[in-house]
């Protein structure tokens, strides 16, 4: 990690307008804080999370989150950094995971090394598959690449039910992680042990993927993404640059698959299918493809939506879809882009002026959104609940969905909330402008 201290400042803030004078000063000061800080904070968070959320289900959900983080980051090596849109990324994680599962079941071999090493093997298998597929798919970017990835993804997913010897058919392959060589006496019986194993790998993988983006081939991946022809006239073969990114991405996807294998001790067709490939695309894009940390946010938010929101409502996928479409339409930079929009304001020290306007607009907007979702839930209840089952519970209140009053309340709240939002909008806009003008002055 000490490698990071020499990293230039502009590396940490790709694709956004930074204040050059400010940035260079920091670089000259050799400031470690800027680049090392997020990793330290991340590591500390990973360590203390289980002390805040102690239940096994919270650990399970967090494990799922971290696995998705690794997977999404590996996906972003393709989409965000390399400009390759893949519709079949799940197969690399899946094949890595299946390989890990087979290693788990090869009892003699599995007993010869400790469990934390297993994801490495999974990564190598993911990488192996990426080597083969990449050899012909990375020749072109764009539509050709996307369609080959779709085709290969469908093929391998279809193979999962045909080639039973490796993929185990529909019920998949299962094993027992505790048969590995004990790791300092730990057999990984409990969720908490698995949590720390997963956390170690997620941190390691994230650091490695970050460092990858700082290497020559990682930088050239960006160049090839933006302008493959120009990159070729700089001495780099666009195809080989894409190929290396693809293979590296396959490696980290495989690690995610290996972590999945350790966590769930079962791999099924679900780990390979196009739906999983689609989900990781959504996760990554939701988080933001333009920034390294974007997919991390996407993975955390999406896992919460999928596991926690789906406990609240059957309509979770509907809300997830709306959230996703809204992101694509209004914040193509994703959630990370939304956050980074505020960096200039923080740099000028004027971020404080935004707080009040935000409260005045976002709070009513949130209330409005909740009111609208209440309307959606009520409509759904009226349409699909059992006859006579008029009672529904929403926001800790139980009421009769067939009476008029709750509808009037919900509509009134929604209208009022959006009206307030609208009324306070100009104020936010003005505050936004002031908070950001100072920056332009210094450029």
């Amino acid at each position, binding site marked *: 990690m000490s*490698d990071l201290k020499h990293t230039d400042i502009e590396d940490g803030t790709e694709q956004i307008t930074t204040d050059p004078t400010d940035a260079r000063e920091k670089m000259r000061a050799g400031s470690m804080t800027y680049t090392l800080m997020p990793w330290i904070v991340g590591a500390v968070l990973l360590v203390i999370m289980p002390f805040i959320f102690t239940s096994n289900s919270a650990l399970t959900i967090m494990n799922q989150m971290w696995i998705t983080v690794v997977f999404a980051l590996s996906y972003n090596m393709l989409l965000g950094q390399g400009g390759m849109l893949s519709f079949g990324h799940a197969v690399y994680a899946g094949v890595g995971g299946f390989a890990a599962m087979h290693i788990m079941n090869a009892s003699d071999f599995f007993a010869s090394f400790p469990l934390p090493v297993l994801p490495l093997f999974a990564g190598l298998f993911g990488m192996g598959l990426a080597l083969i597929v990449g050899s012909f798919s990375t020749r072109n970017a764009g539509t050709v690449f996307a369609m080959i990835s779709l085709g290969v993804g469908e093929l391998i997913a279809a193979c999962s039910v045909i080639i039973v010897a490796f993929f185990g058919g529909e019920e998949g392959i299962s094993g027992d992680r505790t048969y590995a060589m004990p790791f300092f006496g730990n057999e990984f019986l409990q969720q908490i042990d698995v949590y720390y194993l997963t956390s170690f790998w997620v941190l390691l993988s994230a650091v490695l993927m970050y460092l990858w983006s700082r290497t020559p081939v990682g930088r*050239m991946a960006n*160049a090839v993404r933006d*302008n493959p*022809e120009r990159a070729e006239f700089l001495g780099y073969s666009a195809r080989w640059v894409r190929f290396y990114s693809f293979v590296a991405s396959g490696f980290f996807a495989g690690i995610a698959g290996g972590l999945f294998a350790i966590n769930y001790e079962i791999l099924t067709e679900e780990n390979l299918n196009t739906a999983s490939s689609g989900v990781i695309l959504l996760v990554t894009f939701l988080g933001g493809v333009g920034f390294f940390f974007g997919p991390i946010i996407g993975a955390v938010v999406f896992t919460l939506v999928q596991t926690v929101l789906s406990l609240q409502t059957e309509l979770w996928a509907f809300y997830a879809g709306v959230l996703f479409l809204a992101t694509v339409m209004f914040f193509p930079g994703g959630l990370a882009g939304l956050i980074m929009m505020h960096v200039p304001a923080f740099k000028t020290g004027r971020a404080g002026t935004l707080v009040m306007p935000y409260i005045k607009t976002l709070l009513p907007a949130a209330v409005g959104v909740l009111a609208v979702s209440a309307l959606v839930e009520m409509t759904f209840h009226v349409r699909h609940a059992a006859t006579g089952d008029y009672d529904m519970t929403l926001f800790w209140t139980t009421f009769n969905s067939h009476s008029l009053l709750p509808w009037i309340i919900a509509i009134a709240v929604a209208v009022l909330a959006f009206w307030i939002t609208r009324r306070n909008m100009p104020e936010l806009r003005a505050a936004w402008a002031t908070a950001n003008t100072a920056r332009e002055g210094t450029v």
Partner: protein
Amino acid sequence: MNAMTSTDAPALDISGLRKSFGKAEIIRGIDLSIGKGERHAVIGPNGAGKSTLFNLITARFAPTSGTVKLHGKDLAGLQPFQINRMGLSRSFQITNIFPAMSVFENVRCALLWSHGYKYSFWNMVGRSRDLTEGADRILEQINLTSRRDLPAGVLSYAEQRALEIGITIAGGADVIMLDEPTAGMSHSETDYIMDLIRTVTVGKTLIMVEHDMGVVFGLADRISVLVYGEIIATGKPEEVRGDARVQEAYLGAALEAEH
């Protein structure tokens, strides 16, 4: 810089080069030899095939027949990146940079290969003082130091052209090809760019395409005039200017354009 087969071979040697698109023959048999360290300009009216010639030399298009030799080595069948590694670097008529990356990054990417980094994934580019200093030096040469950390896409047109020249020379290639570097520029901008080209190509072989003879007059050692896919004259600037056929071609084209 490397891969030279013989020391006395010309930097670029073109013989019998032809190119057809369907039935239309755009390049109709070109022979041209450009010596080391020469500053050579290819001029000609619009549609003469200048850019096509450029694209043939740099393997963007495959020739119908004929050969192009760089330092005596045949370029047939080579990929652009291979030609670049042999010491030829080019710019484009339409600005061709990495708009989403910072100005500094643009230049640094151009330095990577020549600094021997290749496809390495065990080096951190940020740690290399060579790269950082090298890139900053080039930024100074092209007067873009103050724009160092801006995304290249937000630069003005002239600045982007300057950046493109910076990218083109950064790799240390000894043969530099510039495709209409002053296209679409005002007078003062043109002067600025020409000065820039003059300073950054010292000691290198320069081949540039222009349609305006006046622009290259003070810069080029020799000028070739390309009309309808053929070179009708090659020589020192003053010789070319006095050439009757050149006069005719330019005047003729000017007249045609008026109709």
